[in-house]
């Protein structure tokens, strides 16, 4: 005989009495495991969506606004294979596909349907090889377009229909740059829908980690390239492995393979291949001969050279010269700028080129502050050496504000027009100017007054084009004209002069070189492309598949979320388990007493019972695991339908993972055993004698172990009072000194009430939104007070003597004191449940309330807008009204805060994925600071949240030793502000943390979260100062997000006017309160889910009441039989039982509802808040009815049969 055998025997023998606990365990397990399955399913669904949007793509390189050669990796798969082969990598079928990806807006049905934020992808047959299910025809016919399903739905089109795509034309020169033209910024494509792609045909293609599919349109790459003047160019390269031979690929439900990264080095291989194959042309650089083949010039279609070249090129040349790989070369940079006028005295020459150059490129000696002018200019200005010449020129402010500035120089000298090396090639290819036949045809972004152009100016243009009319030093020129795009327009190279010649002497590079050697341009080009890293131009392949999987793996944990939402349901089930298990144990009182009498310690007896309970828990958990799949499917169905707002519209599918089930089963067993342990704590603590006395009529709570034969008191209490046991001590003497029965509970109730009133008063005084939490806490304390009061009432009632008048009702109520612990458990469960269900609504977020206040989540703004194409002008300016055709009268009173946008992952509650690279916005901090817009919830350590938006201003604080400490920024750290929800939930960070990023030029930098705003429409983004933004992302032109102030009575007018005027830019405006409501809907949906699940828990709790009733009545069948035997009728007897237990039900609900009322007081009294009275009323009525029904059924069941039968059964 072993303890294990005893446990197994006991379990088998008493299995019927365990059925109830088994059922309760199964319910708790089903909910617990089901919640974990939901978490798994969400995570797996996101993973599946991530893999769907990438197909077989493993790595990608986006070059942004920089267009590379589309055949960078060759025109077939063989090119990539050769990369692998040369690198010694295993042979795999890797496909690299170029894509020309451009933003667009789509219109169909003659404008009846419209879609903004469309991405147009120009692709060829290689792209489709990377789909799980390739597009059958491969090539897209010219004039055709493939749409993905969301776009087709938005436009309400199908195959064969026509639509218009307005596509942004790529511009080599950023449209924010000086001289950039605004004309011809988009091109319209009228296309026929060829097919609608499914998700596994790369219909969902996107590199952003978001479960919401983008609007995708696919066209023939060749056609798109031709239409946007980008023939042979691409700005996105994707690659992936097609090799499926090494391992079988798991199937997706419904067919298709889930590709796994069988070749993990695709990214590394592509980067190595890029390094080997890239050319200067891919960075939009061009090396060409100038000045009669004696000089080579490095220039760019982007006009300004990337700043990194300033230092990189000389360094490359130095290494090359040292290695003697070719004739020794020397280089010098130059910056040619378009100036408005050159003036000496009252004579002026308009619209000319001036070159700022380094020494070797100058036609003569020059110092800063001096200028060399051409003979032509000298004649035109009648100027001579020594005169003062004034340059007037434009620089670009923010929002394309042109600011005219001037600078004065002393004329140092005059050079002749035929000076070698000074020719039209010194002017960069300014778009809209280089190819113009005459000055009046110039089409630049600068205002040209044609009436200032003289015939001699036209003649100059005909003869000399952009040949500079003057030279200044490079240092001076860069000081005047350097901008975020660069500070050079060209670098010139020449074979170095013989030793002895001064290094920077004028005339070095292409000027007066009589015996200069020809330039080995091919070698030079090769040297430069090998020496420059593509990564320095932001060209690098990223492991997008790994990033996508990481984003889904670290997504919001719905398992934990649903555990939290379901906790009351689980708690109710566990309480039921504890109750039922205890009931089962109580029927074995004599068995327990026997074991105690045989010398078992109480702890040993409890352990035996607990092991038995563990078996119950194990079986229940296994059963619950089966039910868990149903629960999870129901929850997922809810998330896909009525609770869809919580998941941003994502479609979630059911996924089952064995480890999760096993974990859930283990957790279920653990929590059930813990619940049983709590219930067993007081078992076997009664004296063996009492337990052996045929189930003594004890009441554990009063320690009044009444021997039914002698009426004598339980020895346990007496032991505490007897001298023999005084040495041991016990609480009983202390408790008894408090004297009146129930007084301790009353004191606790009063204390909790006082605390609650204090909190409520404090909350009322604060009058802020945060008072919701205080009132909730007050309500919770009142709940505790109510329960203490009920406990005290039961104790006092039990101690009431027979002197009070005994009536049927008082007899019924007195019955509730028989099992006080049980009664209190039922009251507590019902009170807690009704409190939670009713009170949780206080945390509902209301977007409308106080929406016009600056401190609200809308920042006081009326509208929030986003455009597909950049808005280049200040929407409040005259220029904008001109360009966009806006009616000033309709926009009266409007003011705008514009944001630059660098696309990334949406870091908001609507994106279930963990944002890997969040979207970045750039704003002038002063525009928000002066409005004191939004409420700051938190600032980083050492900073004050009251500084608000000024925290975005970069500065470094130093300690006494001069070291940067708690610095807001250093050179590589940029302060940022985000919405608190974005920071905490979407990014998984906290205020003060830093996030590493890479800028447009491939340089790493960090964003430091210096503050967070509370619950705002800025969710989803991180905001930095505009000057930092343009420094890191100079290629991002214009503004694409807007917060708009307008008088409340003109919102519709302003909205319609702006939408109309900027429709070609795809502007979409939304009331700010509506946007906030969409974010709030996530939290509000979770609260609603909690209330639903809490309501289920409440119903389960009322089932528990029914079980308690049944148990109580069965225990007292003998008494009831006696009452029948002495003349009571059955009907009043049933009423007696129902009243006794109805009191518990009523007390529980009353305590819970009263406490909840206090918790929701701010919502009830606050303006504009809708309290769902009817929903709550129906829920509580349902609980009341449910409880009553169970009570009634239990009473009927227990009191069936005649008196004699009941008396016999009781024996």
């Amino acid at each position: 005989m072993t303890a294990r055998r005893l446990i197994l025997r006991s379990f088998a023998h008493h299995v019927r009495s365990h059925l109830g606990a088994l059922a309760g365990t199964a319910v708790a397990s089903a909910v617990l495991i089901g919640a974990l399955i939901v978490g798994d399913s969400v995570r797996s669904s996101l993973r599946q969506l991530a893999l769907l949007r990438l197909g077989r793509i493993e790595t990608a390189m986006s070059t942004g606004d920089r267009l590379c050669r589309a055949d960078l990796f060759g025109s077939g798969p063989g090119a990539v294979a050769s990369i692998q082969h040369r690198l010694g990598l295993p042979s795999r079928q890797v496909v690299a596909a170029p894509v020309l990806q451009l933003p667009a807006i789509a219109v169909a049905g003659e404008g009846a349907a419209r879609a903004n934020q469309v991405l147009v992808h120009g692709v060829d047959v290689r792209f489709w090889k990377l789909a799980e299910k390739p597009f059958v025809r491969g090539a897209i016919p010219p004039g055709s377009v493939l749409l993905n399903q969301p776009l087709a739905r938005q436009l309400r089109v199908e195959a064969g229909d026509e639509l218009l795509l307005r596509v942004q034309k790529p511009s080599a020169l950023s449209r924010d740059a000086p001289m950039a033209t605004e004309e011809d910024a988009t091109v319209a494509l009228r296309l026929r829908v060829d097919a609608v792609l499914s998700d596994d045909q790369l219909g969902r293609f996107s590199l952003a980690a978001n479960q919401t599919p983008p609007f995708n349109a696919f066209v023939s790459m060749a056609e798109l390239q031709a239409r946007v003047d980008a023939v042979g160019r691409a700005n996105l390269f994707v690659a992936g492995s097609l090799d499926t031979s090494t391992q079988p690929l798991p199937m997706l439900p419904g067919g298709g393979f889930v590709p796994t990264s069988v070749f993990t080095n695709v990214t590394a291989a592509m980067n190595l291949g890029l390094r080997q194959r890239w050319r200067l042309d891919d960075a939009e650089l061009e090396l060409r001969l100038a000045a009669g083949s004696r000089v080579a010039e490095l220039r760019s279609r982007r006009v300004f050279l990337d700043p990194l070249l300033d230092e990189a090129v000389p360094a490359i040349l130095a290494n090359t010269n040292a290695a003697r790989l070719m004739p020794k070369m020397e280089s010098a940079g130059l910056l040619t700028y378009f100036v408005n006028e050159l003036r000496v005295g009252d004579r002026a020459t308009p619209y000319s080129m001036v070159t700022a150059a380094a020494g070797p490129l100058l036609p003569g000696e020059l110092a800063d502050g001096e200028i060399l002018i051409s003979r032509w200019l000298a004649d035109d200005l009648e100027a001579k050496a020594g005169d003062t010449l004034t340059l007037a020129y434009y620089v670009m402010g923010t929002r394309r504000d042109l600011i005219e500035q001037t600078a004065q120089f002393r004329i140092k000298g005059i050079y002749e027009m035929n000076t070698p090396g000074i020719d039209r090639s010194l002017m960069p290819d300014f778009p809209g100017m280089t190819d113009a036949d005459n000055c009046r045809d110039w089409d630049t972004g600068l205002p040209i007054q044609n009436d200032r152009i003289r015939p001699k100016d036209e003649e100059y243009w005909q003869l000399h084009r952009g040949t500079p009319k003057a030279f200044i030093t490079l240092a001076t020129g860069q000081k005047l004209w350097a901008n975020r795009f660069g500070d050079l327009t060209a670098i010139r190279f020449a074979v170095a002069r013989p030793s002895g010649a001064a290094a920077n002497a004028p005339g070095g590079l292409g000027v007066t070189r009589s015996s200069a050697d020809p330039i080995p341009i091919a070698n030079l080009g090769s040297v430069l492309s090998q020496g420059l890293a593509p990564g320095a131009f932001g060209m690098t392949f990223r492991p997008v598949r790994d990033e996508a999987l990481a984003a889904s793996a670290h997504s919001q944990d719905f398992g934990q979320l649903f555990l939290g939402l379901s906790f009351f349901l689980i708690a109710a089930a566990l309480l039921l388990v504890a109750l039922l298990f205890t009931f089962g144990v109580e029927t074995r009182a004599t068995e327990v007493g026997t074991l105690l009498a045989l010398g078992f310690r109480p702890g040993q007896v409890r352990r035996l019972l607990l092991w038995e309970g563990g078996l119950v828990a194990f079986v229940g958990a296994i059963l619950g695991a089966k039910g868990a799949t149903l629960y999870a499917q129901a929850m997922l169905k809810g998330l896909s339908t009525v609770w869809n707002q919580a998941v941003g519209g994502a479609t979630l599918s059911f996924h089952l993972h064995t480890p999760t089930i096993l974990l859930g089963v283990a957790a279920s067993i653990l929590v059930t055993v813990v619940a049983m342990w709590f219930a067993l704590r007081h078992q076997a603590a009664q004296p063996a004698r009492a337990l052996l006395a045929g189930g003594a009529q004890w009441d554990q709570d009063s320690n009044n172990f009444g021997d039914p034969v002698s009426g004598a008191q339980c020895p346990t209490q007496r032991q505490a009072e007897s001298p023999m046991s005084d040495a041991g001590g016990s609480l009983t003497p202390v408790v008894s000194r408090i004297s009146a029965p129930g007084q301790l509970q009353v004191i606790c109730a009063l204390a909790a009430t006082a605390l609650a009133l204090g909190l409520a008063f404090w909350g009322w005084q604060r009058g802020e939104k945060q008072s919701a939490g205080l009132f909730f806490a007050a309500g919770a304390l009142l709940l505790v007070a109510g329960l203490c009061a009920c406990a005290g009432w039961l104790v006092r009632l039990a101690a009431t003597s027979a002197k009070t008048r005994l009536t049927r009702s008082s007899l019924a109520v007195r019955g509730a004191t028989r099992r006080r612990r049980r009664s209190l458990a039922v009251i507590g469960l019902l009170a807690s449940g009704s409190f939670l269900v009713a009170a949780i609504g206080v945390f509902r977020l209301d977007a409308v309330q106080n929406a016009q206040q600056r401190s609200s989540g809308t920042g006081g703004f009326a509208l929030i807008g986003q455009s597909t194409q950049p808005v280049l002008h200040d929407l409040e300016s005259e220029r904008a009204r001109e360009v966009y055709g806006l009616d000033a009268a309709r926009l009266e009173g409007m003011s705008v805060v514009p944001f630059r946008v660098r696309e990334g992952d949406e870091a908001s509650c609507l994106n279930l994925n963990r944002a890997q690279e969040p979207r970045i916005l750039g704003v002038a901090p002063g525009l928000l600071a002066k409005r004191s817009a939004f409420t700051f919830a938190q600032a980083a350590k050492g900073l004050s949240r009251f500084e608000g938006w000024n925290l975005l201003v970069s500065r470094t604080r130093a300690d006494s030793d001069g070291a940067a400490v708690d610095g807001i920024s250093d050179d590589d750290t940029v302060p940022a502000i985000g919405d608190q929800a974005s920071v905490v939930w979407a990014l998984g960070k906290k205020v003060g943390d830093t996030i590493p990023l890479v800028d447009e030029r491939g340089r790493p930098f960090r964003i430091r979260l210096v503050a967070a705003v509370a619950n705002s429409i800025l969710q989803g983004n991180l905001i930095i100062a505009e000057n930092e933004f343009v420094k890191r992302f100079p290629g991002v032109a214009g503004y694409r997000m807007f917060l708009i102030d307008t008088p409340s009575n003109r919102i519709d007018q302003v909205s319609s006017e702006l939408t109309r005027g900027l429709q070609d830019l795809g502007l979409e405006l939304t009331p700010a309160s509506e946007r906030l409501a969409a974010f709030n809907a996530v939290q509000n949906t979770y609260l609603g889910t909690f209330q639903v699940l809490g309501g289920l828990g409440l119903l389960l709790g009322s089932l528990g009441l029914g079980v308690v009733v049944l148990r109580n009545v069965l225990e007292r069948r003998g008494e009831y039989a006696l009452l029948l035997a002495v003349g009571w009728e059955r009907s009043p007897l049933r009423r007696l039982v129902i009243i006794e237990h109805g009191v518990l039900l009523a007390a529980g609900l009353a305590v819970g509802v009263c406490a909840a009322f206090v918790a929701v007081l701010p919502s009830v009294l606050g303006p504009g808040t809708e309290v769902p009275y009817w929903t709550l009323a129906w829920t509580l009525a349902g609980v009341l009815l449910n409880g009553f029904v169970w009570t009634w059924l239990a009473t009927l069941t227990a009191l069936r049969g005649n008196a004699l039968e009941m008396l016999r059964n009781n024996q």
Partner: protein
Amino acid sequence: MAPADPLLRLINVTKRFAGVGDASVSVLAGIDLTVERGESLAIVGPSGSGKSTLLSIIGTLDTPSSGTIELEGRNLSQVRGAALAALRNRCIGFVFQAHYLLPQCTVFENVLVPTLATNNEVIRDGAPDRARRLLERVGLGQRLKHRPGQLSGGERQRVAVVRALINEPQLLLADEPTGALDRVSADQLGQMLLDLNRETRVTLIVVTHALSLAGKMERMLELRDGRLDRPRDP
């Protein structure tokens, strides 16, 4: 040779229970009792006189309101918790009027249940053999695998007696052991108890209404008005 110390000694033991209000009911009003090792003692008395209470106190299932109880010279009021349970397990065997056998266990297993409460390897290792021997002794050698539901009342009570003796206690307490049996079974059980007392020298204290059984004990005392005394003549 000095006489051996008595096994059990009660000195002025009282027991009171709470009544209505502040009043209390005195059940034992000062019990003085000495029981020698190997002795058989019967305690008789009218119903409600406190016999079972006295036996429960002796068997450490209850505690006295005052007074001292010494078992093998140890003052039981100073023994608590685990030590008390161990003492009850090793030194005292209890037989109740109701057998309190575990219905889910066989006869053999029921007998061995007390051995699960101890960690003493010697006791546990030898228990199965002792159980078979004792069950054989009481005539149940062929019923080892039977469940309590398959036995008669007398047989169940015999199993309960063997269970009480499995750990070789010094003291065997029997509270109305024959109260639920018919006359024949009662006589058989009573005789069995006496035989075991003689054979094993286990000290036997029996509370009983049955004078026939009481008369066979070496000593008989009557509990009357809360005190133990020689029995009155009928």
